[in-house]
C-alpha cells in the first residue's frame, strides 16, 4: 500500500511540473497535431503504391500514436539527472521511500502524457476521416499498447540517466535508438513494403509490436490473435525495464 502511495506522490511531483510550465504543456499537446498533419501529407503517396491496402490516415494514426509514445517517454531520465545534480536524489535515497516507486511515479507521469497526446491524435484523425472499426475498445487497446511501450522506454531512460548521470550520454542514447526503431517498424510504411531484412528485424522491435497491436485493435475489428501476444510482450518488456530502472537506482547508490 505504501509503495502505491509513494508512487502516487512521485507522480504528483512530476505532474505539477507539467502544470507549471504551460508552454511545455502546450507544445506537448501541439506536437501530435504537427506530426499527424506532417506525416500525413508527406507519406500520403504511400497509399498509391501497389500492394498498399486501405486509407493512409487509417494506416498512419496508430503509427503516430506509437511514435509519440516512444519520443516523449524517452526523455524522462533527464529529470533524474537534474535530481542527481541538484542533490534531490540523495535526499530521496536517504528517505525510506521504496526505490521502485521513484521510477514508477515517473513512468505513470509519462503514461499521462501519452494519454493526452493519444487523445489529441485520435480526435484529429477522426476529423480527418479515420475509421475506428475496432470502436472505443479498440482505441483503448491501441492506447494500452502505446502506454506499455512508453512505460518500457521511460524506465530505460530513467535507468540509463541514473547510471550515466550526464545529459549528453542520455541524449546520445535516446536519439541513437528512436529513429532506427521507428523506421524498422510498420509505423509509417506497410511492413510488406519494407526490405526483407527490415521485415525480419521488425519482428523483434517493440515499436513494431505496439504499432501492429494498435492497428489490429483500433483500425479493424479487433484481431486478438495479433493483439494478444504483442500486448503480452509489451507488458513483459515494461516489467523488465522497470526492474532494470529499480536496479539502476541501487547500482547508483552502491557507486556513491
Amino acid at each position: 500500500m505504501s509503495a502505491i502511495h509513494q508512487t502516487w506522490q512521485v507522480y504528483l511531483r512530476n505532474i505539477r511540473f507539467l502544470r507549471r510550465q504551460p508552454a511545455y504543456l502546450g507544445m506537448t499537446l501541439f506536437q501530435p497535431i504537427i506530426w499527424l498533419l506532417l506525416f500525413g501529407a508527406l507519406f500520403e503517396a504511400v497509399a498509391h503504391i501497389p500492394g498498399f491496402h486501405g486509407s493512409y490516415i487509417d494506416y498512419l494514426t496508430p503509427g503516430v500514436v506509437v511514435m509519440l509514445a516512444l519520443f516523449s517517454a524517452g526523455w524522462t531520465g533527464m529529470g533524474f539527472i537534474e535530481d542527481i545534480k541538484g542533490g534531490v536524489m540523495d535526499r530521496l535515497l536517504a528517505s525510506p521511500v521504496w526505490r521502485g516507486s521513484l521510477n514508477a511515479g515517473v513512468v505513470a507521469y509519462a503514461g499521462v502524457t501519452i494519454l493526452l497526446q493519444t487523445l489529441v491524435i485520435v480526435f484529429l484523425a477522426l476529423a480527418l476521416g479515420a475509421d475506428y472499426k475496432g470502436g472505443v475498445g479498440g482505441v483503448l487497446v491501441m492506447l494500452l499498447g502505446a502506454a506499455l511501450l512508453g512505460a518500457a522506454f521511460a524506465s530505460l531512460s530513467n535507468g540509463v540517466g541514473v547510471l550515466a548521470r550526464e545529459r549528453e550520454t542520455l541524449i546520445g542514447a535516446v536519439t541513437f535508438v528512436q529513429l532506427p526503431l521507428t523506421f524498422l517498424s510498420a509505423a509509417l510504411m506497410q511492413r510488406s513494403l519494407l526490405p526483407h531484412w527490415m521485415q525480419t528485424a521488425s519482428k523483434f522491435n517493440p515499436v513494431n509490436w505496439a504499432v501492429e497491436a494498435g492497428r489490429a485493435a483500433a483500425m479493424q475489428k479487433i484481431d486478438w490473435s495479433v493483439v494478444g501476444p504483442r500486448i503480452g510482450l509489451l507488458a513483459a518488456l515494461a516489467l523488465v525495464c522497470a526492474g532494470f530502472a529499480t536496479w539502476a537506482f541501487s547500482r547508483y547508490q552502491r557507486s556513491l
Partner: protein
Amino acid sequence: MEQAIEARELTKSYPPDVRALDGLSLTVPAGTIFGLLGPNGAGKSTTVRVLTTLSRPDGGRAFVAGIDVLAEPTRVRHAIGVVGQKHGASPEATGRENLELQGELYGIHGKELRQRVEESLARFGLAHAASRQVRTYSGGMQRRLDVAMGLLHRPRVLFLDEPTTGLDPEARSEMWREVQRLAAEERMSILLTTHYMEEADTLASEIAIIDRGRIVVQGTPATLKSYLQGDGIAVELANGTHARARAALARVADVDDVRVDGHTLRARARDGAAAIPAVLAALEAHGVGATSVTLARPSLDEVYLRYAGRAFSHTQDETEQTAHEHEEVPA
C-alpha cells in the same frame, strides 16, 4: 539509546585505489552536537554517506540510533534526518510542496502532515514564501528549507553535512542558533561536518578530526586545545632552505615541534612572545630571512594542524577550488 552513533572499523575504497575510509571508528553520545572536522578527501562525506545508508562500507559495522546500518537500512532511514551538502529541495516545487512530499515519503499523511508543515514553515521563517517556487529562494532560505525537510519526521539523529558552506555570515549565525536550539531544547543528537573551525568550536560539544579515512583525535574543544602546550609561532620565510630553518630553531631553547609547511615555518613555545626574538635571531644567524611572524594562542586550527599534519588554511584553499560535491570520490 545510549549512543546516537557507533561506528567500528569502517573501511571503504573507491576504484582504482582511493582508500576513503581506513578503519574509522567513532562514537557519538546521544543528545550531543558532534563535529567531524577534516580536509577534503579526508573521508568526512564518505562517513556521512555510510551512516545515512547512502553508501555501503566494504568492511566494519555501524549503528545509528541503535540500529544496524547494514542490516536494517530502512529502519535507520526512518530514524535519521539528513541535510546534505547540496540542496535537497526540488527547485520547481514550492516550499510547502517540498515539505509535503518529504512527509509523505516518511509515512506522515493528512491532517497531521498539514499541521507539521505549517509549523515547520513558521518555525524556519518560511511561511511568507511557502507558496513560492524554491528556485526563487535566497541561499539562506533554501538552507533553512533543507533543514526543515530533514526535521519534518522528527528524527532522533540529525546529519548536517557542511550546513553553512556558501552562506553569508548572517545566515550562518542564524543556522548556528537553530542548531544549538535543536540540541538544547529537543535533545537531538547531531553529527555535523564542517570546514570551519569556528563553527565546530561554537557548536560542537565534542569534536573528532578525521584524516586519510581515520579519526586521528577526538575530544571536547577545550580538551583538544589543552593538548597543545604553549603558543604556536608561524614565521613566513623569505628565503633559505627548510633544512637550514630547522637547524636554526633546533638551537633555540623552549621551542619545539618545528615543522615547515610551504613557506611557513611553524613551532610551539611555552611562552611564544618571549621566544620570538630568539627565533628571529637564530634564523638570521643561519641566513634565513623572515617576512612576518605571527603568534597564535591554542586554537582549534592549531589542534587541527597538529593532528591532520597540514595547515588548515592550506586545505581550505583546495576546498574552494573543488566545487564539486563528490570531491572525495574521483570520477
